[in-house]
């Protein structure tokens, strides 16, 4: 039941809308089918499956709005759901930020669904988990991993003519491998629309190599260093991240209200200003084959290819429909993932071109320190290495950093080849003067 075709979904939504007496009514169907498997200490610890579908109905009378949901689809339940939304709407206060529902929209097509991923079985999950376990058993290493997949759809329809539908699939995998003495740790992670590109064994091998290589870390003084930040040090599917934090700060209203790094002294925002190195270009494109996204936002607005930073210049900010109208600015929804333009250099190439520096596999426990400057703190983890004369010399103890992605993207030395991680597509970056403020004994 969880995955409905466009026709099946729209036929339920049409029926829902036929029951309403509200001025405006919008109905959204969401369905997912998926599962997960978790391992630790080279054994399966938990496994589960999820199958869920739900309908949300928003009814509006004037500027009053109410929402109700249900997960049964017989006529009586659907009718009751609409009536409940209408009852709530009649009781709600008028919204001072009311904007009418959108009418018919044109949406792009995204390659966001792969049949291979939709067909994942519990046996497939177990076989991928066991591939990693077997490898670590042989190497006398200890692995902990998590695989989670989902296939699903979202369909929307309203009585102003809007109609939307999209299917998607996704698989997230991450693995941490540790040496039995606890002195080495490595990590690998990735996400995929199509599982034909996924191989848990290959990713576990990367984590295992990093674990073995990180044993015997030497302490070096904290301070400012040239660093090569691998993608897991820039974006994450489980934690806050430096580039994620930067993109989360592109909200026009916060900037206009004076409470963002994009706010301008005296009022207004910094759209059009060059704030980053000229090689920095960040955009989103739901039709990207590398990182397909959702072609419509939660309120039904179409998502297009949008450039946020071009050659270091802030090109666009996103906003709610209300704020766009009030401020008279372009009405752009936030992205469902972003792409940082990169080059062709591999991480190995970036290492070769580095005289002295530090290779960072992953940054962790990243938290905001100062919203004014986007200063964040966090720590290196799961493979931190000293580079000298273009070669990795030895592992180093982990550091705490205090750094702002704004400063970081001004201290850019080189950009590598992008990869997909955490729903984004980002390259490894070489950054000078990255600020490490203390050492950590953690492995």
């Amino acid at each position, binding site marked *: 039941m969880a995955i409905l075709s466009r026709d099946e979904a729209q036929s339920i939504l049409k029926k829902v809308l036929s029951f309403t007496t509200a001025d405006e009514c919008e109905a959204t169907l969401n369905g997912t089918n998926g599962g997960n498997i978790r391992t630790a200490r080279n054994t399966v610890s938990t496994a589960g499956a999820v199958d869920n579908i739900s309908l949300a109905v928003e009814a509006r009378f004037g500027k009053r709005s109410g929402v109700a949901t249900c997960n049964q689809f017989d006529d009586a339940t659907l009718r009751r759901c609409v009536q409940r939304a209408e009852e709530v709407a009649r009781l709600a206060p008028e919204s001072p930020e009311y904007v009418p529902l959108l009418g018919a929209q044109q949406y792009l097509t995204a390659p966001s669904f792969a049949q291979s991923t939709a067909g994942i079985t519990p046996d497939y999950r177990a076989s991928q988990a066991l591939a990693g376990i077997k490898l670590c058993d042989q190497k006398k290493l200890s692995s902990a991993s998590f695989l989670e997949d989902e296939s699903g759809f979202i369909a929307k329809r309203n009585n102003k003519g809007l109609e939307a539908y999209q299917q998607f699939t996704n698989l997230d995998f991450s693995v941490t491998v540790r040496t039995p003495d606890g002195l080495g740790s490595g990590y690998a992670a990735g996400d995929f629309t199509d599982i034909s590109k996924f191989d848990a064994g290959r990713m576990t091998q990367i984590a295992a190599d990093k674990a073995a290589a990180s044993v015997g870390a030497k302490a070096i003084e904290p301070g400012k260093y040239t660093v090569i930040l691998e993608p897991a040090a820039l974006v994450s599917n489980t934690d806050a991240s430096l580039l994620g934090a930067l993109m989360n700060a592109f*909200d026009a209203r916060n900037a206009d209200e004076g409470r963002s790094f994009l706010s301008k002294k005296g009022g207004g925002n910094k759209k059009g200003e060059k704030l980053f190195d000229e090689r920095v270009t960040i955009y989103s494109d739901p039709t990207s084959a590398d990182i397909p996204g959702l072609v419509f936002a939660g309120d039904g607005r179409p998502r297009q290819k949008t450039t946020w930073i071009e050659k270091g210049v802030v090109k666009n900010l996103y906003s709610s429909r209300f704020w766009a109208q009030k401020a008279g600015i372009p009405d752009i929804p936030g992205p469902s993932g972003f792409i940082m333009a990169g080059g062709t250099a591999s991480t190995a190439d970036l290492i070769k071109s580095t005289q002295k520096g530090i290779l960072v596999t992953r940054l962790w426990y990243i938290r905001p320190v100062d919203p004014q400057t986007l200063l964040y703190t966090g720590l290196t983890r799961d493979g931190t290495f000293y580079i000298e004369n273009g070669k990795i010399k030895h592992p180093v103890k982990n550091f705490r950093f205090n750094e702002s992605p704004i400063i970081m993207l001004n201290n850019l030395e080189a950009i590598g080849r992008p990869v997909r991680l955490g729903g984004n597509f980002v390259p490894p970056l070489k950054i000078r003067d990255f600020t490490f403020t203390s050492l950590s004994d953690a492995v």
Partner: protein
Amino acid sequence: MKRRDFVGLTSLAAGALFLPSFPSLAGEPVELARLFDPVMDAAINKRLADAALNAAKSAGASYADVRIGRYLNQALFTREKQVQNIANTESYGAGVRVIANGTWGFAATNNVSEAGLAKAAQLAVQIAKANAKAQKEPVKLAPQKGYGEVSWKAPIQQNAFEVPIAQKVDLLLAANAKAMENGASFVNSALFQVNEQKYFASTDGSYIDQDIHRIWPTFGITVVDRSTGKFRTRQALSASMGLGYEYLTPKAQDKIAGPAGSDVIGYKNSYDILEDAALAAKQTKQKLTAKSVTPGKYDLVLDPHHLGLTIHESVGHPLELDRVLGYEANFAGTSFATLDWKKQGKPYGSKLVNIVADKRQPGSLGAVGYDDEGVQTKEWDLIKDGKLVDYQKIRDQAHIVGQNESDGCCYAQSWQDVQFQRMPNVSLRPGAQKLSVDDMVKNVEKGIYIAGNGSFSIDQQRYNFQFGGQVFYAIENGKITGMLEDVAYQANTLEFWNSCAATCDQSDYRLVGFFNDGKGQPSQSSAVSHGSATTRFNGVNVINTARKI
């Protein structure tokens, strides 16, 4: 791409960034009246639970438990003069956990009928048998007696769900008005209320009916100085509590002033949101012109609202036995406090450091009568006179540390998630000697008083941490001399707790709570409180966090 990416960035979501933490609401939105529907009836639940337990045993389970749960949430969001959103959600269903062939299996269903529960039980057994192929050691449970039919209710005075929404909205809007009158440029406020109605039964012979309530009023204030382009924020000094709406009726005896020279007020078992909003706006304005801290070593005097988060991160998490053993290695991490480290007997803290784990303290977020695997709750020592004496453990972990009893700290965030070891309330015992907050300050030559919890980060083995706060005051020669800004302290867990020099007595003791402590994959959220009195730590490294961009 995931379904969560679908959610648009609305003005609500953007504004919510200025709240301390924006909890995700579990469950489906429902209309208000639904929250009062009687669904959970112990007699019916017993019949349903027996259907699940019998089906599990028939399918080959050696042990089974079932949790039938109804989880209600209500959240109100406002900014300045307007209501942004009112969300009522409900989640109802049952989870069945079994041991078959020495392996755990779990399945959940929202079909709460005898047939639905029996089917989930059979699926759980199937999953257990499939996973048994990859199992290296059979599950070994600490013995647990059945309690028969028992019940527990949180000792609340006023069910927050029964208070009219208009009354709650009016209170939030009044707090916003206080903030604006006192100089706030923007204010976001929210009230979260949770009711967990849980019925647990197991093949040990327990049938446990529980009713749990939690509440969290909060706000975030921003003051913008357009002429300089600077802005500063301050969040509420409220605690999330295991209380009813009575928490929002302020009582004079629950207000505890900070040291002379600061204008800080802390709150014990009731909260004055109007007073705090007014103070917060004034303090945020002062922050715009406060002196930037000179980095270096300082004696820190930490208020309980602040210290609770430091306790949470540097004592609560490292002593979770599943972390210690490596089960969280791929996500939250492991722990420095390994079984071998404990054997060495090195001091965790100074002799003043006595830290207790507890699942019973009235008003705390962790308080329940029985945990989610049917173990009666208790209080136990984690650190005694500075020495690590115990961990936090559940039934399948007790044997690993040579014990035969669970600590009763097993929890699942909903019926559809599998229960596992979660942090109980972890609290620093107040000092035996009579000491006030002014006594903490008077002997400090160069120090900083920090109130409220702010930025927090700690490594994956819980050695190196960095904490900020909400407001900072310089202490010079035993006196508060003015406000400071750009303060964060960095320390190593062991060095920090060994620098603990003095702690106030019981009269200053209070709880701070966290609604959304995350752990596990898929991640589950749990609510936990931490108690302490104002405490001094000598010679801690303070950094300056100001940057030019």
